[in-house]
């Protein structure tokens, strides 16, 4: 069984990353919707921008994964 502190650490790493992404994506998403309403041809670019903050949650996930899978093996 995992150490509880490891699990919590992983949870925090992932959770905060996701939270950050959520906040950023909400704003960018709203702006993206605005852009698309005016210039539908920019749909693709808007999509890229909406996806940019995903980095955060991914990094969070990786850190969580490292904490969960890599740290215990060290």
């Amino acid at each position, binding site marked *: 069984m995992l150490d509880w502190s490891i699990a919590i650490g992983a949870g925090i790493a992932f959770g905060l990353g996701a939270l950050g992404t959520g906040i950023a994506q*909400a*704003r*960018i*998403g*709203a*702006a*993206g*919707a*605005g*852009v698309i*309403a*005016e*210039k539908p041809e920019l749909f693709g670019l808007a999509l890229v921008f909406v996806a940019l903050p995903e980095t955060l949650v991914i990094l969070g996930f990786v850190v969580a994964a490292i904490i969960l899978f890599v740290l215990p093996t060290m």
Partner: protein
Amino acid sequence: MTKVDYEYIGARIRGMKSRLLERKALEALGAKMDISSVIDELENTPYRQDLEDASVQYTGLACVEEALRRNLSKTFRLIFSFVKGEDAETLINIFLNKWDIQNIKTILRGINIQEMSEEIAESLAPAGALNDATLAEMIKQPDVKAIIDLLATWGIEYSRPLTRHFKEFSETRDLVVLEYALDKFYYSQALDAVAGDSYDEGIIRGIVRTEIDVTNIKNVLRIIRDKVELEDPQYYFISGGKELDVDKLSALSKTRTMDGVTKQLAGSSYDFLARLPDEYVTAEKISPFEKELDKFLLQKALRLFSGDPLSLALVIGYLWAKSNEITNIRIIAMCKTEYVPEKEVMEELVFV
């Protein structure tokens, strides 16, 4: 109060802004030979749809005018469709209410001289918060009092200043009384609405107060040009300006020369007036001064584009930019009908 979705609004306004005609496009319009080639050229701009709609009823200059009207009111409606939230709407309404005031004045004036209702209806601006049905019902009224009563009956706030000053009007039969009452009511309402200390209120307060200053300076110049003595300066000037209070204004109006006014304004934000060529001062021509003042105000409003992107700054800036663009196109169309030389047309346009 609902949360205002500034990200969405900002993005849309930026998108809309990018569709405003650039200076080059306007210059191309100005270089056209006559009104029909101006219309042809406008067909390649976002005004195309409005031109098509307007062309069902009008041709030539009237068609352009109608298209511009339609475009303006369409733009306002569009902005209202996505600017949601009570506070935001109140603030944007400050901009729109100017047209309400003008329309009410037009109707009062028209009814007062028993003008034909079609004629009055045609003289109404196509914007503002009052809807067309209300305006149509107002035009149907037999006299000034009836209009005020109708406004009161429908719970429209402009009935308040009008009712308060109606007695005075019925004694003098001078509509100016009611007009000043309306104007002052508008500005005091506007200032009340932005009395708070939020960013949005702050920027709009800045604009409104600058506008008050600009209007007051214009009026000082007009008074001086016509060499009239003011018995009651309080009555003619709007209080609440940013840099000039009523005392300062009445002092200005006592200088009796335009030169004197511009000199006294040195050190304020309006010292650019002193830099205008002397020939305007000696010719007592007021429109160049007005143009500069309007430009100043417009510049101030357009600077909002670089304000906080998550605020109403963009919307207000856009509204100003849009109305300026429409004015510019109207100037071009008008001048092309009168065959004004291209150079003079360009001089009349306001670019910022």
